[in-house]
């Protein structure tokens, strides 16, 4: 196990550099002049532009820029945004919000998704099952921005339970509605995945054995059925937690949540290279760690898988 983890960590290194280089290239080498964009409609003073470019290393060849950036990164310096604010500061403000939102969405999708999936998986063809299938299909079919607007209209405009957008991103109660919207798509996947998995495992030979052993139904479901059925679901949930941590551009945008997604969206539009690259670098690390954890978790759940 230890050597497997080590090998996986070593494998992550080239992927880390590759991904950051890729995003670096996408941000800095694609057409469009970020410094000119800073001045908006106004004509820029060439001298000022040159000095800014020099300050941000933009007058260097792209590979030198990348090396310079990486060098700073390993000293804990994420660089400075064009507005002069350190990228690390920007992230320190936004990440706590995104983490809260992500965790709430995660708990919501996991608890409700599993419950719905188990109920509909055990009672195939029942009314409850049909309802779950229809509801999840609707959620999967609708893009998240439509869902967000519907939620806004119903709960804020019509019912008046919440304000249409989040006023204070650090207030957990205000994050509930965005979290539900954010988690709903994954909830639909979790419910369907659980349902399918339970349905498949119900027909497995070892369930027949458990019945033949004279075990009570409860024991059969909790000890024999669920553990096996949850393996693919847990894998999905693990990957999804990694994805949720990346912030939700659309949901955060609509509900005005000041998280990573919102910051990133603005940074991309303003060609704020340092901010985009900094955030994406962190996201890549989160993604790599999440996928490693999923693999390890998989081995814990399924003893047939042993990493050596």
């Amino acid at each position, binding site marked *: 196990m230890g050597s497997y983890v080590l090998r996986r960590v070593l494998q992550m290194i080239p992927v880390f550099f590759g991904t950051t280089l890729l995003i670096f290239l996408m941000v800095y080498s694609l057409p469009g002049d970020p410094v000119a964009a800073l001045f908006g409609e106004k004509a820029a003073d060439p001298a000022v532009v040159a000095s800014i470019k020099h300050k941000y290393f933009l007058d260097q060849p792209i590979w030198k820029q990348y090396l310079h950036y990486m060098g700073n990164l390993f000293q804990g310096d994420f660089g400075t945004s064009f507005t002069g604010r350190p990228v690390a500061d920007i992230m320190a403000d936004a990440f706590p919000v995104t983490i809260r939102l992500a965790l709430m969405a995660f708990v919501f999708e996991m608890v409700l998704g599993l419950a719905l999936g188990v109920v509909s998986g055990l009672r195939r063809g029942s009314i409850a099952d049909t309802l779950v299938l229809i509801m999840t299909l609707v959620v999967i079919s609708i*893009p998240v921005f439509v869902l967000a607007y519907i939620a806004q209209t119903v709960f804020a405009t019509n019912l008046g339970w919440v304000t249409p957008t989040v006023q204070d991103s650090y207030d957990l109660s205000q994050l509930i509605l965005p979290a539900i919207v954010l988690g709903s798509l994954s909830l639909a996947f979790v419910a369907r995945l659980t349902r399918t998995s339970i349905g498949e495992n119900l027909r497995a030979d070892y369930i027949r054995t458990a019945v033949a052993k004279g075990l009570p139904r409860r024991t059969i479901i909790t000890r024999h059925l669920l*553990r096996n059925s949850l393996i693919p679901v847990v894998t999905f949930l693990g990957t999804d937690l990694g994805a949720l941590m990346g912030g939700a551009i659309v949901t955060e945008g609509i509900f005005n949540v000041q998280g990573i997604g919102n910051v990133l969206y603005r940074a991309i539009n303003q060609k704020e290279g340092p901010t985009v690259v900094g955030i994406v670098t962190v996201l890549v690390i989160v993604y790599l760690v999440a996928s490693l954890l999923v693999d390890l978790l998989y081995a814990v759940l*399924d003893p047939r898988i042993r990493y050596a």
Partner: protein
Amino acid sequence: MPDLTDKKTAGEIPAQRTETGAAPKQEKARSLGSDAWHDLRRKPIFVISALLILLLIVIAIAPGLFTSVDPRAGDLRLHYLTKPNYSHFFEADWFGYDLQGRSIYARVVYGARASVVVGITVTLGVTILGGITGMLAGYFGGWIDTIISRVTDIFFGIPLLLGALVILNAFTSRTIWSVVFALVALGWTQMTRVMRGSVITVKQADFVTAAKALGAGTTRILWKHILPNAIAPVIVVATIALGGYIATEATLSFLGIGLHHARRRGARRPRPEAPLREEVTTPMTTVIENDQKSDRLDVGTPLLEVKDLHVEFHTRDGIAKAVNGVNYSVAAGETLAVLGESGSGKSVTAQTIMGILDMPPGKVTQGEILYRGQDMLKMSNEDRRKIRGRKIAMIFQDALSALNPVLSVGYQLGEMFRVHQGASKAEAKAKAIELMDRVRIPAAKQRVNDYPHQFSGGMRQRIMIAMALSLQPDLIIADEPTTALDVTVQAQVMDLLAELQAEYNMGLILITHDLGVVADVADKIAVMYAGRIVETAPVHDLYANPAHPYTKGLLRSIPRLDQKGQDLYAIKGLPPNLLKVPAGCAFNPRCDVATDLCRTEIPALHHVTDKDGKELTGRRSACHLWKETLHG
């Protein structure tokens, strides 16, 4: 729902490959494909979904057919002065007007075009790009695989939406093709992974080895042998991804980065539902049927008696009569071997006794199953459960799949004591070790926490036996307990079973199709054919002198050392289709001595007499010609 044309390709590509001949797997793929296609066409849900997709494509190709209004022409006043008129089908104000006074209906129609174009071209692009790279990585392996796999890893680290935003931001004027470009550039690695995995599996197939051995070139192998067989999962993923790309494009538009004119597309687009396997009703709720209270146990009767049992399966093609009036009984310490081909109803009978038959589709239409004189079919679920495992236990054929893969064998053995006897965790474990010792598993103490996959086939079957024996039941039903094992291991396992049975004086029902297994252990034999018992006899009498032509045929088909050099006998024909059992004796089409009587009248299970007319105890034969068969 999956795209019509894609499904069709999935079925047809392998079909075109059959002229290469040397590929049995392709033959199979082909028939599977066309069967599936045939089945699909009969499903209304598929037809409806396919028509919807088709409609979408037609709208994309010719939006002018559906509206004559220009989606871009707006009159600001219209938004305020006109309300949607939902009965004005296909007219400009059907859905009303947007803030700029443009017809929403016209915009939906034209918006569909962008969605379909983006969806289809992106899917095609990623499939081609990912397909080629995946095929190279999967087929050649080595450094090619390493490079391609690392590149896909790198791309996986970047969220699709995020990357697309960055790329699209670089385009000063964005068209539909810049969206397509961004999505293909970021999405192709998904297909690479799928294709790589699929190719690696197909690469190991025998027909690829055969093609290589026949000297086929790499290109030919890749194109003719690997591609058609490996493409199926890619097509499935592509169909699902199609919907995803359309959604991504809509989201990009929403963020103001996609196509500007397409901004307000609604959610009116059918999306592929995650492909769920065809589902059959589950067994859990159905192993349980009657709820009448049980009477007192009656001692002095046989341990188990099956009386006139009838079981049917209700299938889509009709009613399959799997068991048609089976009678047998087992006493304590006795071994009954139930012999028959697959489909003879031997396992269905056993599953009905155990109460683990899937109902539906199975259904007991008639008969009784008496355990110590009590009809189990009339017992409550709870009473029945308490008999299972404790009084009647079962040994299954394939121990690997019959044992739970994620629980240790110690847990699964100990569970019997915990559930039925309320033992503590520690007690249960001690008992589990004891049991494992009892079935002679070496180093039981060290291995008690191991998982089923860590044992050999023979050891696993021993664990199965230990589990069945754990509560010292009165009766054990062993359903082909040795079929999955090597011949030498078979003998060991059978010996163990026989020994333990004698020791605990248990009744044993041994279900098998293997006459060789039966001879040593059984006391009496019941031969089944098409859901009926056709002959019963004490084991030695049956071997010495069968009273039914079917039994006779079975015995003749055993290879014998004293008949070297002769062709091995085989009963002609195939077991009957249970949906259409032949009239009269079900065996008559395969019987060498069948008469007209056999073709019209179902033979009763006759008592059998010897040449002097004295009844032979325990011998019955369901043949009109039993006399001729036995004595002739």
